[in-house]
């Protein structure tokens, strides 16, 4: 079996990063999934991210 077929036929191991609705969607389909509670630094606020960047915190 080539690699592409293997990807489609074998069971998936999924890590969901960030968005809860993707997690719920997979769970509803009976897919096993590990969730990582991630969000962008400073909630994605450009001004605050710029400050954190200047402090070498990003």
């Amino acid at each position, binding site marked *: 079996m080539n690699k592409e077929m293997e990807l489609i036929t074998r069971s998936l191991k999924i890590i969901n990063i960030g968005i809860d609705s993707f997690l719920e969607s997979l769970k509803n389909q009976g897919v096993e999934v590990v969730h990582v509670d991630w969000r962008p630094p400073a909630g994605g606020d450009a001004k*605050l991210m710029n*400050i954190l960047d200047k402090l070498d915190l990003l």
Partner: protein
Amino acid sequence: MAKKIELVAEANRKAVERMIAARPFVVDVKPAIEAVAGMKDRMLCHAGPPTELDEMVPSFRMAIAGGIMWEGWAKTPEEAEKMVRDGKVIIEPNHHHNGIGTMYGITTPSMPVFVVEDRVHGNQTTANIREATVKALRYGCWDEKVKMRLDWNRDVLGPILSAALKASGGIDMVPLIGKALHMGDDGHNENRAANLLFSMHLMPYILKTGYGKEAIKEVVDWMNTDSRLVSTAEMAACKAITLAAHNIDHCSIVTTMCRNGTYTGIRVSGLGDAWFKAPAPAVNLLFFPGYGPEDATKDCGDSCVTEVAGIGALAMAAAPAMVQFVGGTVSEAVDYTREMYEITTTKNSNWTIPYLEFQGCPLGIDVTKVVKTGMTPHINTSIGHRLPNVGQIGAGMTRAPFQCFADALEAFAKKIGI
């Protein structure tokens, strides 16, 4: 030249070292006019950041009016409010006077306050003394019973505690709180262990004060009735600890956090006495029977000085039984503490948590970490009715509003020149 982040890291290290080194002792109970820094005649201190009378919920306004009437400056709530509007009574936050007060935090010149002395750094802090448990001035209640309890605190409880504390040489609150955390307290809303330790230590001195048997019996009965009498002494100790870290150049650690049903406010060590305010959040509550969300005031009180000093909700893993009072599960209580390590600077070696293999409590809330992660401090709290003369209606959990921290970070960046 050192990079900015190195200067900030060094300042923050110094701040938490000073917090850990602080040794607050409860040394006395005195009338506020004699002990609260800058307290004057016709002055009333309240919880939270500066707030205008018209911004306050009705129970907050009644608490202020009640304090004024208890002092005998006015006879009615209307007359009391007029005195405030005319500038005849000055109202200011407790934190402007190195003090704290729970819920609406009313402190007037004649009220007895715990006096705490940091014997390492020389700072003195104060906290008002609790009255009844549910219907009290601090929740915006005012009637004959409330007045009588305040009178008794001033005339009986205060003088006897004062004599006993002076004879004891003062109580070292750092080991007392550390032991209480090992016995199931969180130090904010669960204080039974600390209360027992405080009572055990003080009892021989109370019995030897020379006051009449009846008065001593009343005080001993009250120490047995109010399982949280010591809580405000713990909070004054936390205020002394956080004060030791205030006003350090380049320091991004939060040294004040408080609320009053209208605003939550924070101050940051490296930004001096500037306030960063946002609307106080609602609390996820376990309500007493008969009450619901529409009745509740928003998050309230100076009591979250405990969280700033690294206990309270930050030490919930030490007090899993507390979830029966504030809601949630035991695993959530443990998660609250684990999460708070993400936004703090160090672990406090004075105060450890057995369930987490004796790791120190999370200490030194850092605005840069709060903003980066979006995780604001957890707070556990009681809550009162928004209308006067009802009192406490529940307890629960909340989080400080993000906006305070975002605004503080912007001001901090400006201050350090980035």
